[in-house]
């Protein structure tokens, strides 16, 4: 009854993809370089947003791959390669964090605390330049290690069809999971929370994580639905698999709102000046509208858009909502970073467009070259057949 072999005919992505990716990359790069010449500080702030956005996608996709192994999920197996390809953007993270490490003294206030600033001096054992650099590079190497080990096993399985490789990856995922939790929390603290070093929120790591996994799922969903609708995967994948993907995005939309609101509620209730000033900075002048917009963009629209069952199975709707969520994550990071530097007015000009274009181009190009060299479906995976036959 159940056949173990799956028919898969590898199809090349159209070269148009490469052209689009290259175009976006070049335009983005031009704007970024120009921006760094014209206004290096403001470009550095945009660079932080871009870096944390790319970490979200790269490490979040690796998390998505790991959680599939760990939970034994079959529905996502036919699409696992999308997550693997996207997580290979881990390689290009230095491109975005090296300029920041060179500029670390101008961006971060904690690098040169005022002598009277007891808070920052007390925080110096953690917040100092050398330890910061060690953390950034250490976390990157850790992600790279797990990316390399897990993806190597997964690709080897295409040839050998060895089921033990899945077992190996399950073990690796189990080790990766707590390390992921720690590294992503400290990444959030290092890059985002330490911009305002006097402020603290114990839930901040979870807050960034909720956006991370949402962005990774959303960009995964875009590639998965686009490729599947054009027949790049195997035949027989049903819209029920889209439903699972949409339900996961919907769940994490709620998770984000839950965490964001928890963070706000505690600070609002306690009303302590050492905590509230961070929110007040986001409530002054035009930032007030931006903050209200965050609730609408990041929660209400995706929530209503993905609430009903048919909307999670509709390919067009799913792509639209996923694109929307990617935008919402960028919006969220912008909201976290920019009010620390610009009071009362929202900075927006061509400088802000550089990093989104650059990152979009990078992701498309990386995906294109990965898809060229590797199978788009993990044909050796023992769960593949079950994943294709997945029905609600």
């Amino acid at each position: 009854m159940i056949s173990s072999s799956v028919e898969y005919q590898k199809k090349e992505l159209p070269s148009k993809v490469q052209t689009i990716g290259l175009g976006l990359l070049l335009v983005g790069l031009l704007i970024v370089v120009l921006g760094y010449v014209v206004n290096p500080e403001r470009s550095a702030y945009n660079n932080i947003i871009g870096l944390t956005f790319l970490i979200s996608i790269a490490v979040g996709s690796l998390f998505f791959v790991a959680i599939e192994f760990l939970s034994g999920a079959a529905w996502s197996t036919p699409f696992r390669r999308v997550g693997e390809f996207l997580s290979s953007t881990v390689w290009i993270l230095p491109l975005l964090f090296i300029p920041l490490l060179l500029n670390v003294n101008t961006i971060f206030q904690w690098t040169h605390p005022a002598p009277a600033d007891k808070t920052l001096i007390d925080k110096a054992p953690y917040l100092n330049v050398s330890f910061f650099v060690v953390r950034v590079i250490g976390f990157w190497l850790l992600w790279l290690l797990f990316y390399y080990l897990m993806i190597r096993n997964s690709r080897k399985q295409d040839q050998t069809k060895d089921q033990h490789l899945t077992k190996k990856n399950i073990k690796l995922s189990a080790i990766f999971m707590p390390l992921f939790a720690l590294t992503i929390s400290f990444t959030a603290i290092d890059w985002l929370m330490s911009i305002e070093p006097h402020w603290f929120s114990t839930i901040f790591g979870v807050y960034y994580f909720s956006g991370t996994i949402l962005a990774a799922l959303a960009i995964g969903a875009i590639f998965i639905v686009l490729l599947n609708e054009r027949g790049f995967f195997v035949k027989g994948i049903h819209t029920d698999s889209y439903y699972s993907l949409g339900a996961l995005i919907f769940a994490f939309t709620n998770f984000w709102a839950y965490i964001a609101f928890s963070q706000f509620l505690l600070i609002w209730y306690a009303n302590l000046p050492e905590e509230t000033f961070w929110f007040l900075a986001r409530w002054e002048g035009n930032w007030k509208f931006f903050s209200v917009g965050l609730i609408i963009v990041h929660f209400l629209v995706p929530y209503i858009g993905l609430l009903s069952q048919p909307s999670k199975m509709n390919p067009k709707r799913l792509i639209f909502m996923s694109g929307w969520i990617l935008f919402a994550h960028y919006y969220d990071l912008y909201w976290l970073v920019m009010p620390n530097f610009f009071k009362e007015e929202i900075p927006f000009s061509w400088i802000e467009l550089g990093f989104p274009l650059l990152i979009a181009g990078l992701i498309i190009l990386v995906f294109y070259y990965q898809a060229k060299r590797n199978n788009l479906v993990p044909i050796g995976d023992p769960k593949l057949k079950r994943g294709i036959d997945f029905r609600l």
Partner: protein
Amino acid sequence: MSEKILYSYTGIFDTPDEVTHAAEEAVKQGYTKYDVNTPYPLHGMNKAMNLPPSKLGYVALIFGLSGALGGLLSLWWVSAIDYPLVIGGKPFFSFPAYIPVIFEVTVLSAAIATVLAMLFFFFKLPNNAHPLHATDYMKKVSVDKYGIVIQADDPKFDEASVRKFLERVHAKEINAVYWVEEEITHKHKIFEPKFLTFLLVVVIITSGTTYFSLNKLMFMLPFNWMMEQQKQNPQQKSLVFADGFGMRKPVEGTIARGFLPYEFQGQPDLAGEKLINPIPISKESLQLGQTKYDIYCSPCHGYQGEGDSRLRGQFPNPPSLHSEKVRTWSDGRIFAVLTDGQNIMPSYSTQLTVDERWTVINYVRALQRALNAKESDLQ
């Protein structure tokens, strides 16, 4: 036994794939009144049976939204309209504090409504008499087999063709199921002695258990741990303090919040010289003064302050407040009377706060002015 009435034909399968295939075929045949019974939910069965999407989601949506609205309205009514309390310096209507409660009410009402709608509306429970109950078919399909039922009231039902159809999809154990005579004719009586006895027993047991646990059990060892605590109760003899009093006086010099000590105790004339009325005369303060005067002063002094007590001689009438003496007293002197008392008038310092005493004095001044108006007041 009278004539048996046919309910349905049943067929049994060994694998889920076969029953799914049979359901697809049943749809092709055009049967509408048929059902599939399996020991567990089968993925893809909804599609095979061509069932429309469940309407249960709408129940959850409607009740969830009304729960959210109800939660919001009740919170707004309770904390901003009916009983406004300042909590943590927040506004009475503080939406962020409501969100967790609104969320809970939304989830609660949606969940309860969904479960109840599922059981009593969609599943049509309680259904005590169903022909498939107590059949070999039901025993098997609720353990390890998969079954399909084609009902006799289906418009396309025909014994021979249904039997043929079930044979064609390779069903095993094709059987006819009949209504049991009793299931059709039986009427459930409410006032059956057995049922009434059962109700009575339930009432006795529940009320007895409740009475026992609330009034007896809590005083028995070891359940009395909340009633019997090692602590000092009011009015109990203390074993700790030498004087044996369980209730202690506050430390010497303790001042209650918002109360300043009165420094002119027993020195009414000095108070008349030193104290200055801090409450400005305004409509609000006079109205408060009138309210307090009518409550605390008027029983003896009368509503107009003429000493016309409503107590009808059961108590010595006080002098009029319109005498030359009282009119020429300073506000501070009257304050001393209200605070310390005078002759048989007791102190009102516990009934009236300091500010309220001053508003009462303002009101008394207004009463005096009304009876002894100056020429200039008429202009």
